[in-house]
């Protein structure tokens, strides 16, 4: 470790880092703009200047940019040198010559990195007396607002948007002090990662438009550490509330999971919490006054819960606590997943593979660090966007690593590495049913049916291990691709294989496993990652519960069933005919959910429950990482509580036992762990609800929170007693422990002098590294070291059938989410439902793009506008999946089509 001297103090620092990273990691407040821990250095803003001395005798030194200098032994620098300080202040004065003085009306005000740095450098007096330059702003779509006059030209936006995330439609234009960051012309930003601009921008050029619609100062938000609800990756988020309304989602750094970035669905898809479609009242249907109070409900519940068979239908989007509470209520044998057979089967297979522990499943960070990636049949761009972003980083980093072997350029030197690497890329083979934006950075792109992709996978496995069977009757292109991909995978030390359930194919899962298993040896450590549909799909799958069809069989046999359905709109997952039959056979239906939907309409008893914003819960992501999401606010309407609390009360009623106290998540997880060994360790996911630091709770509100004594004054002049949180160490107040809480309990990032999200530096062990005390989350799957056994079951090649088409889904990043669609901007970006056929198939039906195609499946006929594609295989029909109002369809079955 090099020893360097900062203002004559010796420090042992990590080799390979630059001075800025080192100073920040040591806790020194050195200001910066253009450097970003995830994007490296470019040396443009000149804000991080320090004095660098030749040797111990040199007293004069030279001003140098700390972000552009590697640490080396005996390096002597000064941060406090008056010349360096004056220069840093001068950089701010220059930036302020044109930056508007609109902080009071700027969305970013109070959480602005530019404000922080301005204060930090001490610049306070304006000497520039001329006019400021002004720009025209652009319309950038429904999610991001543009205010170019505030721009300080740090180039972070284009570096993130283009270089990091691969976007094309944001760029830098013009020159000198008219440099402009925007689009060629007004229009919706095309990248699904555009929301990160609001966080990478050090000031208020790019801001969150959804926040603007119900704006509040960021310091006035009540915040909580939460988990994103919109896919299976479990990105860590900070949810912010004021006046009983969820106002914004920002990234919550977790070095193992999402790092610094979120996708737009995760960032903006929160408006369902505020939706008018929320269920707010307990209802008992089929009576004059359906809306009832809690007591009436409690009096009613014994009639339907006792003396009848109770079955529980669980949910992949409800917390593990709630699913467990339902298992406890209904009994393990009477708990079902509420998902169709095939989906349950696939997810079970994945859970079995992971719990066998023979192959490592990588975190998103490990995917970023992979040196070769094979995506086998999962459209991760749409089903797991941040994983797609991680794959892009793997491709870019591997290219940079290759050039570093030739030319000794430090890893932080982004500009130099990009220059050397040029267009070269690390290895990615991307296989998906349809083309994907990831194809652009892929060395191999394959589009086809799941079975054909699986065959390619099995052939790769065969080439990696010739004791495995070769694929029969393989086409030349398959053999060629298999050879190329297997060679590249063999060159890698940390190859990652990614697949998932969205294609509905078991063969893909088997093939992916066989490849990973064949790659495993002493030197090579492959990772096998799976993408699942929902935020707690893995948790639900780990229960091992049976499918919906099994529940249907029960109600068809037993006329006295009360079905308790937990946060699950069955019509989204299961063909409507089956669900209708199910409901018609149930004696009583109790539904607990957050939003009205087709399933809640069928409820005899409807119970409103808390969303992630109003309730605590633990979610298990695609890698088996259990993570706690904390409620950010308590509904003024006390009825709105977590489903598991309702279910616990129902269990008390049903079993006629009473323990006389409320239940909290810790107890649920302890019980879960006791009852189900596969969840071992989950009870340690977060500190206990009784955890305190010096007797204090951790406040959800910043010490800058304002209006507390006035905001309820329209109701009562006295300040109401703060709400009590019995379930967690967090408080709903400003008071409490002001230091750094344990990582799972960080409600927001703030440090003295660092009011923007950049304060995260202070919470990390080193910049860009793990949070102090370790990143949140407990991985439940442990590697056993057991020798993997191969599947080897190769499917036949896909062959079209006369007059029938194979039905496959296409998920949409914007639109396929049950909850995110409630955000106006996301709904606006959601595509219209459509069907896709190959041009030849369309011609055989005498149809063209734009015509209405009738699809006969699941005993119904649906009509979709047709799109024809030249790159699509004959014999398959692709339908947009999961869009609002669309029925669930039996993917992977043969359907009839007609004009």
């Amino acid at each position, binding site marked *: 470790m090099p020893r360097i001297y900062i203002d004559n103090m010796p420090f042992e620092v990590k080799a390979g880092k630059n001075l800025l990273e080192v100073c920040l990691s040591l806790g020194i407040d050195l200001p910066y703009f253009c450097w970003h821990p995830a994007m490296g250095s470019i040396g443009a*803003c*000149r804000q991080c200047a320090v004095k660098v001395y030749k040797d111990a005798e040199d007293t004069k030194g030279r*001003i140098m940019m700390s972000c552009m200098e590697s640490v080396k032994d005996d390096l002597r620098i000064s941060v406090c040198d008056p010349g360096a300080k*004056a220069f840093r202040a001068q950089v701010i004065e220059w930036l302020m010559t044109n930056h508007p003085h609109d902080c009071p009306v700027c969305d970013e005000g109070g959480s602005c990195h530019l404000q922080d740095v301005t204060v930090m450098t001490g610049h306070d007096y304006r000497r520039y007396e001329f006019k400021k330059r002004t720009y025209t702003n652009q319309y950038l779509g429904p999610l991001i607002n543009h205010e170019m006059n505030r721009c300080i030209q740090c180039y972070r936006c284009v570096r993130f948007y283009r270089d990091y995330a691969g976007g094309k439609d944001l760029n830098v234009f013009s020159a000198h002090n008219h*440099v402009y960051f925007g689009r060629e012309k007004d229009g919706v930003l095309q990248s699904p990662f555009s929301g990160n601009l609001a966080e990478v921008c050090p000031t208020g050029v790019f801001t969150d438009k959804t926040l603007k619609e119900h704006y509040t100062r960021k310091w006035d938000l009540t915040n909580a550490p939460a988990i994103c609800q919109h896919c299976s990756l479990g990105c860590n988020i900070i949810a912010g509330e004021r006046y009983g309304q969820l106002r914004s989602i920002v990234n919550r750094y977790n070095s193992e999971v999402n790092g610094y970035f979120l996708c737009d669905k995760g960032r903006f898809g929160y408006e369902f919490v505020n939706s008018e479609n929320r269920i707010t009242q307990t209802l008992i249907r089929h009576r004059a006054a359906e809306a009832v109070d809690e007591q009436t409900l409690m009096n009613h519940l014994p009639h339907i819960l006792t003396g009848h068979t109770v079955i529980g239908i669980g949910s992949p989007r409800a917390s593990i606590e709630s699913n467990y509470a339902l298992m406890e209520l209904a009994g393990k044998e009477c708990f079902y997943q509420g998902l169709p057979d095939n989906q349950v089967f696939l997810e079970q297979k994945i859970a079995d593979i992971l719990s066998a522990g023979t192959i490592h499943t990588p975190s998103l960070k490990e995917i970023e660090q992979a040196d070769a990636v094979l995506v086998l049949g999962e459209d991760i761009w749409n089903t797991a966007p941040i994983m797609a972003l991680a794959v892009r980083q793997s491709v870019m980093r591997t290219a940079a690593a290759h050039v570093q072997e030739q030319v000794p350029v430090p890893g932080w030197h982004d500009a*130099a590495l990009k*220059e050397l690497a040029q267009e070269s890329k690390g290895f990615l083979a991307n296989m998906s049913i349809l083309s994907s934006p990831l194809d652009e950075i892929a060395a191999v792109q394959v589009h086809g049916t799941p079975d054909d992709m699986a065959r390619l996978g099995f052939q790769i496995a065969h080439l990696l291990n010739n004791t495995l069977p070769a694929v029969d009757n393989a086409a030349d292109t398959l053999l060629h691709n298999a050879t190329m991909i297997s060679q590249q995978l063999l060159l890698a030390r940390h190859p990652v294989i990614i697949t998932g359930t969205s294609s509905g194919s078991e063969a893909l899962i088997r093939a992916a496993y066989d490849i990973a298993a064949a790659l495993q040896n002493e030197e090579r450590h492959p990772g096998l990652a799976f993408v699942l549909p929902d935020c707690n799909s893995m948790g639900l799958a780990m229960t091992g519960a049976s499918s919906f069809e099994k529940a249907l069989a029960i109600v068809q046999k037993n006329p006295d069933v009360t079905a308790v359905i937990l946060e699950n709109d069955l019509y989204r997952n299961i063909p409507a005919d089956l669900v209708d039959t199910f409901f018609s056979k149930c004696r009583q239906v109790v539904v607990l959910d957050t939003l009205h939907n087709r399933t809640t309409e069928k409820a005899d008893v409807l119970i409103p429950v808390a969303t992630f914003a109003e309730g605590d819960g633990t979610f298990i992501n695609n890698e088996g990482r259990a993570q706690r999401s904390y409620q950010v606010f308590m509904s003024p309407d006390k009825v709105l509580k977590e489903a598991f609390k309702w279910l616990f009360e129902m269990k008390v009623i049903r079993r006629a036992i009473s323990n006389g106290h409320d239940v909290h998540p810790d107890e649920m997880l302890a019980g879960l762990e006791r009852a189900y060994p596969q969840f071992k360790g989950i009870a340690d996911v977060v500190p206990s609800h009784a955890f305190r630091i010096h007797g204090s709770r951790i406040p959800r509100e910043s010490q800058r929170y304002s209006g507390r004594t006035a905001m309820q004054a329209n109701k009562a002049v006295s300040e109401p007693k703060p709400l009590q949180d019995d379930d967690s160490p967090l408080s709903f107040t400003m008071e409490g422990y002001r230091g750094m809480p344990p990582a799972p309990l960080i409600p927001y990032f703030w440090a003295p002098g660092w009011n923007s999200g950049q304060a995260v530096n202070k919470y990390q062990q080193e910049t860009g590294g793990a949070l102090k005390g370790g990143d949140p989350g407990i991985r439940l799957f442990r590697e056993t070291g057991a020798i993997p056994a191969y599947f080897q079951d190769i499917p036949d090649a896909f062959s079209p059938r006369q007059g029938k088409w194979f039905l496959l889904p296409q998920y949409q990043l914007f639109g396929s989410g049950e909850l995110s669609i409630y955000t106006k901007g996301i709904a606006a970006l959601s595509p219209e439902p459509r069907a896709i056929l190959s041009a030849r198939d369309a011609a055989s039906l005498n149809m063209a793009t734009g015509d209405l195609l009738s699809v006969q499946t699941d005993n119904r006929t649906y009509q979709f506008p047709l799109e024809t594609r030249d790159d699509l295989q004959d014999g398959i029909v692709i339908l947009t999946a999961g869009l609002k109002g669309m029925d669930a369809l039996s993917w992977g079955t043969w359907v009839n089509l007609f004009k």
Partner: protein
Amino acid sequence: MMTERPLTRNIYPDRPPMNLKEYEQTGGYAALRKVCSSMDPAALQKLVQDSNLKGRGGAGFSTGMKWSLIPMDDKAARPKYLIANADEMEPGTFKDRLLLEGNPHQLIEGMILAAYAIQADIAYVFLRWAYHEAAALIRKSIQEAYDAGYLGTDILGSGFHLEMYLHTGVGRYMCGEETALLNALEGKRATPRAKPPFPQISGLFGKPTIVNNVETLCCVPHIVNNGAAWFKGLSYSEDGGTKVYGVSGKVKRPGAWELPMGVTMRELIEEHAGGMKSGYELKGVLPGGASTDFLTTQHLDIKMDYKSVAAAGSRLGTGTMIVLDSGTCPVGFVHNLQHFFAQESCGWCTPCREGLPWVEKILLALEKGDGKPEDIELLQMHTQFLGPGNTFCALAPGAMEPLQSALKYFMEDFEKHVEHKKCPYD
């Protein structure tokens, strides 16, 4: 002694430049033949290093040294590039234009030799967009050289291959900076790159690259033909060779002349430029283009070579001087320059992007009579904070050179602007 003018000997203002045949008749491409038949790249590099040829683009770095930093082993990344920097955008500078329009084959031969010395595969002429005449001439001459077998595969049977292209820029001063030139040539924004890595290691498209000024390259054939000692002997100083000097401003005969390196400023102004026009007195001189410090009458007898001009507190730069006369307001003069530099800033780093427009506005305010005493302090602050190392590249430090020296030598003029609330020269 009759001074030798190897670079401009065959350039005549009254006739078009030589075609290939004429160039060959005057000894053209003999150097290339000599090298191809009897010199290896290392020997050519050593010859140029021994000649003490220094880069004529302004920085004055040893050309042989620059070449020696390029990887020459078999493992060196390919292709390697040789680029002629013909972006001549320095205000007051027109010496490369003379060479480009006057004898294009001399440049092309110099480029092929330089490319041979570093074993480059591809060469570009990066030409200032406004040099339309030069563009046509170079395009024609490159074709002639291809047709004669001086370019392409297996040049003169040596086994050496070289492709050469002309690239015309879009007229940005920034492109004169070699790394910004490389970005521009790659089709990217003309922003400079951080060094290290240097272009010799990571240049055009990330490959080993040498960028040399036009005049520098034009010297190479003559060094090959006549030897390092001869080249050194051309000079009055320790820097080798001749120099194409220029003088502009209110002198009797503005122009450019090839003279031994190290002639005095007095000789240049008084003899070659014919002295000041009547009614004008010499007040100051920017010795090497707009981005060099003023010198004044007290410096007239210094030698115009890299070391002597630096010792006097300025830079030889491009060696083409701009004369400030007694009838021209130094504040207005410097304002004009700062307007240029502010406009030509690429917008990459904060000090240059935001500092230069501020300087420009202050100078304009002074000229219009709106100046305040604090303005002079602000100008001085900028000369200090826009210094080398503080900015990303040398553009802003260069821009500060005429300003800081104007404040040093002509402070009285600045103060009068503030005091009288108008330009005293109006």
